[in-house]
């Protein structure tokens, strides 16, 4: 690295004022820092989903119950059943689509429920024992788009 002759500094001699900055030690420091940070860095972005359960707890909640309770059941045949109880008793079925869970259909049904009963903010999610955790999470994720509070049930 070099710099030109500095103006305004008159000198009698014609000595060159070029200089070289020694950045070797800085490079060494950077190398050590980068190595340490690369070794200890985590490139996995972890997020957290809030969940409650329908059983347990130290004290009873004083919250006013909604006009309808929504229960979502994941079945082994990859069908989804949405049960409404309370002011209205109704069962909505979301069958499997191409052999897979139809979570878009679930979301559509829940949007319909939400438009009819605006005070509903939570749903209980129940699944058969063999259903894998990733499917539970998918169902939770889709439910949360319409009903932000998801409780896990079936205890």
């Amino acid at each position, binding site marked *: 690295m070099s710099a030109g002759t500095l103006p305004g500094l008159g000198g009698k001699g014609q000595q060159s004022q070029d200089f070289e900055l020694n950045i070797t030690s800085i490079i060494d420091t950077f190398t050590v820092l980068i190595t340490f940070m690369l070794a200890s860095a985590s490139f996995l972005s972890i997020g957290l989903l809030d*969940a409650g359960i329908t059983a347990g707890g130290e004290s009873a909640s004083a919250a006013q119950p909604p006009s309808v309770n929504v229960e979502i059941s994941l079945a082994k045949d990859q069908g989804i059943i949405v049960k409404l109880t309370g002011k209205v008793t109704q069962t909505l079925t979301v069958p499997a689509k191409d052999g897979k869970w139809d979570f878009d259909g679930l979301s559509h049904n829940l949007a319909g429920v939400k438009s009819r009963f605006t005070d509903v903010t939570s749903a209980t999610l129940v699944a058969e024992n*063999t259903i894998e955790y990733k499917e539970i*999470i998918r169902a939770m994720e889709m439910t949360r788009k319409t009903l932000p509070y998801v409780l896990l049930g079936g205890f």
Partner: protein
Amino acid sequence: MARLSPFKGKHHQSEEMALQITSMADIFVIILVFLLKSYATGATVSPAAGMTLPQAQAGDQSVEAVKVEVTRDAVQVDGLPVVKLKDFAFEATDVQQNGVSTALSKALELQRKRQVQIAQANSSVKVDARILVMSDQKTPYSTLKSVLASAATNGYTDFKLAVVRGD
């Protein structure tokens, strides 16, 4: 620098060599800034070896809470294995009729007692109902229910389910 070259030349030109490392320093600065920005401070959550977390859209808030990890072979509480699993399943003798795992419940009870003791000694610390659950994506719901039931019976009712943030 002493003259190293064995080659004989007519002229006595200087053979000092200056390595141009300015651009390298620039690259290092950029990498360092990027790493410092993405470096997580505070409570970091990392899954156990061999565990694959499910993917979902979720907030990135970090919590200081008791951590329960469910893998194919064991359930760990704060990094210590407390229950052995056989292909994600609890042993039948360990699970009570209400679905609570005896061994896991005992470990969580210990954690709870510790929290209560700290809260009694320090008024600024409150007993926390939060629990961080990190479970493999293939965990069956029956196992998850046992874990959650064991936690709930010991006062941990605010579950934080860890996922890999996706699109």
